């Protein structure tokens, strides 16, 4: 098991023969489009939050290669147990922009019916399992789903994500241990972006890397340059194939950096080191990949303009549509607790509706976080 950092695209955008996965031109451009669209989607999300039009937002800025490169190695039929910082995967899996934006507004168009804060997506049609806030829980669930697929003889592969902070969770230990014992077809991706909100990596663990934690579970661990989408894709493809062959799980550490603040509630300037920050800004994964495309003659000003145009248009249309969509109806509060509403829930629903019929109901609500 090698723990050196795997890289393919060098700083001036060249990929050495032999190492270059040689993806078809159309695929390369598609990946570039996804990265740019993801970046613009994050910009728009934060802007909407700043304008007070949505309550919260969390960006993946700087980590587009990390999550798109990994998810791109899957088949559409494979499943994702994501964390909250992989929005590009929704675009990769053709989720309509309007549905994504409706989730930000938590309106009637939100597949989750406005029950979670923004960016906690659930898209069954995309085999994208509902995101929860508690850190790490998805890791053990992915192991369990992988165990189930093995029991059934399905050839589904499961990919699950967490951050460097997530490696300290109970479920990191449990999920990887179970996956190892049952040889579950799971790829565990640790997006090491240097921070868990304000806590830096060296306060998260004393281990020399996150990938090395794979040792503890008898599975291979790989460290890859998380800002090099081709390297990320290459190592993940190998892990996915291995899982599909029934050889068990892999832990991949994508070494990247959180360029933005943790979320719209955070101000990283309180704790970020400006120098480190500047260094990483230079390593922007989109710029890096753009260089590579230039060498391949697959990038032009015109192409760039078209990509940005299309993305902005899609976002604008989605925001317009989302803002025209009403909130979920009050009675939806009582749906989906159980498949069938209990008598108790029916009674509580009736009490609320009766009271609303009588007049003003509703407590005033502050902002997140106060």
């Amino acid at each position, binding site marked *: 098991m090698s723990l050196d950092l795997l890289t393919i695209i060098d700083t001036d955008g060249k990929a050495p023969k032999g190492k270059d996965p040689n993806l078809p031109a159309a695929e390369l451009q598609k990946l570039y489009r996804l990265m740019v669209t993801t970046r613009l989607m994050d910009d728009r999300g934060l802007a909407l939050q700043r304008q007070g039009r949505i309550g919260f937002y969390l960006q993946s800025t700087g980590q587009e290669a990390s999550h798109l490169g990994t998810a791109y190695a899957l088949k559409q039929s494979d*499943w994702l*147990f994501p964390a909250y910082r992989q929005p590009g995967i929704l675009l990769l899996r053709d989720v309509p922009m309007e549905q994504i934006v409706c989730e930000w507004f938590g309106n009637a168009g*939100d*597949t*989750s*019916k406005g*029950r*979670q804060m923004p960016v*906690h997506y*659930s*898209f*069954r049609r995309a085999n994208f*399992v*509902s995101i*929860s806030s*508690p850190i790490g*829980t998805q*890791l*053990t*669930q*992915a*192991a*369990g*789903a*992988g*165990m*189930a*697929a093995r*029991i*059934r003889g399905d050839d589904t592969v499961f990919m699950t994500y967490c951050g460097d902070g997530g490696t300290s969770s*109970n*479920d990191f230990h*449990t*999920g990887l*241990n*179970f996956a190892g*014992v049952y040889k579950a077809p799971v790829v565990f991706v640790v997006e090491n972006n240097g921070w868990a909100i304000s806590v830096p990596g060296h306060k998260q663990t004393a281990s020399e890397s996150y990938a090395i934690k794979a040792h503890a579970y008898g599975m291979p661990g790989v460290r890859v340059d998380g800002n090099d989408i081709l390297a990320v894709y290459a190592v993940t493809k190998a892990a996915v194939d291995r899982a599909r062959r029934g050889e068990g799980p892999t832990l991949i550490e994508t070494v990247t950096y959180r360029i933005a603040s943790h979320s719209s509630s955070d101000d990283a300037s309180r704790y970020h080191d400006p120098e480190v920050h500047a260094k990483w800004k230079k390593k922007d994964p989109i710029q890096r990949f753009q260089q590579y495309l230039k060498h391949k003659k697959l990038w032009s000003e015109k192409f760039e303009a078209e990509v940005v145009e299309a993305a902005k248009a899609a976002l604008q249309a989605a925001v317009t549509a989302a803002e025209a969509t009403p909130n979920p109806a009050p009675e939806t509060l009582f*749906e*989906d*607790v*159980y*498949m069938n509403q*209990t*008598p*108790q829930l029916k009674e509580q629903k009736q009490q609320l509706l009766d009271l609303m019929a009588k007049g003003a109901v509703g407590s005033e609500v502050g902002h997140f976080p106060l």
Partner: protein
Amino acid sequence: MSATDTKSSTSKPGVKVMTLIEAVTDALRTEMANDDRVVVFGEDVGKKGGVFGATMGIQEQFGETRCFDTPLSECGIIGAAVGMAVYGMRPVAEIQFLDFIYPAFDQIVSEAAKMRYRSGGEYTCPMVIRSPYGGGIRGGHYHSQSSEAYFCHTPGLKVVIPSTPADAKGLLIAAIRDEDPVMFLEPKKIYRHGKGEVPLGEHVVPIGKGRIAREGTDCTVVAYGAMVSVCEQAAELAAQQGRSIEVLDLRTLVPLDEPMLLESVRKTGRCVVVYEAPKTCGYGAEIAAIVAEKCIEYLEGPVVRVAGFDTPFPYTLEHLYMPDVARVMAGIDKTFHW
């Protein structure tokens, strides 16, 4: 798999006399044969057949892929079950003692209970968590607790507790067929206390319906699990003193069979609720609160709780900690003289 959709009720292809734990095993066998999505796992459930023997013979019968041991992690047992359920299986996870479920508490309350709601119904968790609970076997501090109230206070979970062999089978089968996560808590004290007739094969007792264990007119005593027989003994004694006690066996704590409760209390005008757990914020508080909110005008005496003390569970003095006939009698008496 059609088998799991049929919401059939009891059909009698003969009955067999068995203990409560044998009925649990019978239910697992029945549903595993019925539905190949059902898998059973936990610590020591395989070759050993479970520390109490609830899964005895299951691995031999269905093989290691349908019934298997896990590493020592409740977090993993439940977290994996959630993933399996989301993917389409019907996991039945065993937690060796309810006292040891806490490492999995996050996966239960944050994940299993909320999956359907938080995903707008896109993803669901049809799974059963089986666990022996309660006192009465000299298990001391950490092999005796009754923490059902934690789960009853968690929307998204159903909580079921049988008190007879027939109900153990019928309710467990109903739980496995349920589309939502069910906490199936087994009163270990009565695992082998007496036997009862249990229908062979198909036998479903619907979740959400209670049982009148004994009819009476003067006072309603509400119980579940191992406390039901204690209350029945007290009722017998009270009868000799000329008091007619109605004993309710809730069977399902969430969702509660409220009509049964209200009808009984409105009839008797008195209510005692008996539970093993620490008194404060125990499930009996909910029963008392419902009665105080919905049939205050029928009450002829205080709503009395006979419960475990507000202390951790002891070892040597367990026999004093557990509510017994004498304490239930005293509780009943209090509803008459106060």
